[in-house]
């Protein structure tokens, strides 16, 4: 319900800004609001094999930042989605991952501190399976993996700067990888670590007017 309200609000902002653009030549910069999205599943564990190996469906969850909503998998070949999640891997709609204009890079700093994307920034695109715009691997992109306790923790001070499928800009901070929005303690049960993982909580700000300022 809350998400719907936010979507409507965003829609109004989007539409008014478009109207604003058509009315005058100067782009009116409206403040973008940050939205927090909870518990987006990202290829969660659905069972265990006879050998005890976790089973998943091996599918991405596609997400539209513009609409602030999950996009059905049937639309994976379209530009309706901007970003997609499968376990710790995050892809953008561009390069080898999609047909859109999408790309991304990982900015080190604070979410609120990033008020405009530096002009010399380079948006990378996915080149699966060799490299991804949002670097995969522990400590290299957006998370660290603690092998001893089998836990994923999002790195603090990392902002994913995203170019959407339609060439607009957004910034995103991953807050948590576990259901409920709280990283499990090291002492959590193996079952919890298995079943509550792969749920993203993140906040993002989408700039609908095409500028690089937030």
């Amino acid at each position, binding site marked *: 319900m809350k998400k719907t309200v936010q979507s409507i609000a965003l829609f109004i902002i989007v539409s008014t800004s478009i109207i604003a653009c058509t009315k005058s030549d100067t782009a009116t910069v409206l403040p973008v609001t940050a939205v927090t999205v909870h518990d987006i599943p990202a290829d969660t*564990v659905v069972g*265990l094999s006879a*050998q*005890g*190996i*976790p089973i998943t469906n091996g599918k991405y969850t596609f997400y539209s930042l513009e609409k602030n909503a999950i996009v059905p998998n049937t639309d994976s070949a379209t530009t309706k989605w901007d970003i997609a999640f499968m376990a710790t891997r995050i892809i953008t709609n561009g390069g080898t991952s999609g047909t859109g204009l999408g790309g991304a890079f990982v900015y*080190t700093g*604070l*979410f*609120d501190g990033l008020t405009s994307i530096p002009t010399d920034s380079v948006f990378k695109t996915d080149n699966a399976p*060799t490299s991804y715009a949002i670097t*995969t*691997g*522990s*400590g290299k992109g957006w*998370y*660290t993996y*603690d*092998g001893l*306790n*089998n*836990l994923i*923790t*999002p*790195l*603090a*001070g*990392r902002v994913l700067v995203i170019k959407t499928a339609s060439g607009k800009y957004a910034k995103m*901070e991953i*807050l*948590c990888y576990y259901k409920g*929005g709280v*990283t499990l*303690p*090291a*002492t959590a049960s*193996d079952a919890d*670590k*298995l079943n509550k993982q792969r749920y993203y*909580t993140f*906040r993002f700000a989408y700039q609908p007017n095409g500028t690089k300022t937030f």
Partner: protein
Amino acid sequence: MFGQLRLVHDTLQMQGDSVVVTANRSERKLSNVTVPVNIVNAKQIQQTGALRLTDILKEQPGLTMTSGFGAGVQLQGLNPDYTIILINGEPLVGRTAGVLDLNRIALGNIKKIEIVKGPSSSLYGSEAMAGVINIITDASTSIPLQASLRYGTYQTIDAGVNNAIATKSIFYQGFYNYFTTDGYSIRPNSTSRVTTPIERYSINQQLKWNLSDNTNLAFGVRVTDEKIKNDISVNNGGATITSSGNENNTDQNFNLSLNQRFSNNLKTSFRGYFTEYNAKQDLVTLSGDPYYDLLNHRFQRVENQTDWNVNKRLNFLFGAGAVWEGVKSTRYDSEKVRKNNSIQYGFTQLEWTPVQKFILIGGIRFDKNEAYASAFSPKLSALYKVNAKHKIKLSVGEGFKAPDFRQIYLDFTNAAAGGYSVFGTAQAQQVINQLALKGQIGTLYDSYYQLKALKPEYSTGMHLSWDYEPNANNFFSVQFFRNDISNLIQVQQVGAYMTGAQIFSYLNIGRAYTQGIEVEAKHKIYNHIIISGGYQYLETGDKDQIDQIKAGKVYTRDANGYSKLLSLSDYVGLPNNSKHKAQFKINYYHDNGLFANVRVMYRSKWAVNNTNGNEVFDKGDEFANGYVSLHTSIGKDYKNGFTTQLGCDNITNYVDAANLPNLPGRTFYATIKYQIFKK
């Protein structure tokens, strides 16, 4: 009867003026020692009900027990890797991930334990960076036969026999110990026992032959064999794999020494030492897959040391030796091939007493190593006796720790956890090059090009202490310490496979410090009761992390989970370190043989896990709770040679399965001991 009197004296002595051998590598009165030393004597060990070395060390000021890879000891904030453990001056080997499991050492025939704080590499070489713990076995032959039996919670049985034979020129002392425990589980609904069923045998034989008044030959053997029934659960990519089997660890030491006294002012000793530690894990998983792990460490040393009392004011000590050591392990490229290192070293120490009130000691040691860079360790220390009541000690020294075999030779690929590899520096570049030729390497980092022969880790330590002994019934001491560590060897990612799996090796990159204050006080009342207390305040930090925080490059998270800059005041330093640690003890001993004690230990919270998305430990991370543990024992020494004792450890039943696996819940025990006194 004679024995009884001796016991009374031992029990109620304060700091006293006992003899210390570890501080100067030569016998000195405690009152003339220039560095901080703690002595734990046999009577304290017995009345505490301590069975293994861990039991007694955890009650000493400045020491904290760690629980990964067995029970290690942390000294003034430095990890177990940095404290050398000696038995009668000879080092114990066989460390797993830098930790020497102190449960290996039975306390049944220990005369005393000397703990020297501060870098002591100028006398002992590698590992003596935080300090030295020297366990001195009882070679006395005054008690021909002694037997003891203890039974306690978790079916714990400890049985020991000491025997001694002395003739005019031959002295023999033997010690046999058997220990078994059924283990305990403090995780509810779990079959995984925190301490698994263990059986340990320890044998110690010492033989001394006085060839003449001035010459003696001594031979010693010490063997510890432990069998651990191992049921372990390993989490592998979310799946739990249970395996069972046995772990067998054997520790053997042999030493032979020839000691010659030329005059009251000149003596020399030749010592030969051989030790071997063999650890074997032989497990089978539930699905029938075998798991086998072997570590075998051999260490051989010959050494000569000469003590020369030049005159009343000048004491001169010098020595030299050679070490051959080697390790075989399934974790190296081949378990069949022993990886070897040889060390040649020389040391000297000058002790100058210009006036009775003042002692100045300067020492230096050089260690030349085959497998890694050489090390040079100087030390300077001084003692100033202000008057009969006040003493001030100051010492500054360099310590070092050689890279261990694992850091040089490890060749480990974890097929289960994503296929990451760790290569020791000896062959990291070579192995990675070969993999690159096969097209398996995806990326190489700058750190790959920085790989080279490892240097030892270095520390510079400074200790300043003030001892105040107003009278025979009171003692007070305060000590300030600071250790600066450089060249810390750290695991570093050097590249990645095509699959993305990480490749690690080791580099000398870290810098850290520990500093703090240690306070000790003892007070004797009515000749029967000693009240003693100790407190340690500790600060630690990684200097590179501190620089990063100051530069505004380290982030943490606020209550909403949003990132924010980390401020230095939220930084907590190195993990597993408690800021505050204290102990308080009341010991009672009556002339009729009755003894009792209550001991309270406190440790404040410590960081255990990095949970908020940065690589540093700060206030937002996961901490283990601070805790208090309470122990007591009561007993009686009877005139006919019997001693009975009842005890209860961890009275309040404090447990923390995740962070304190070595602390069982409340345990009770009863001991009976019988000794025949010499007529």
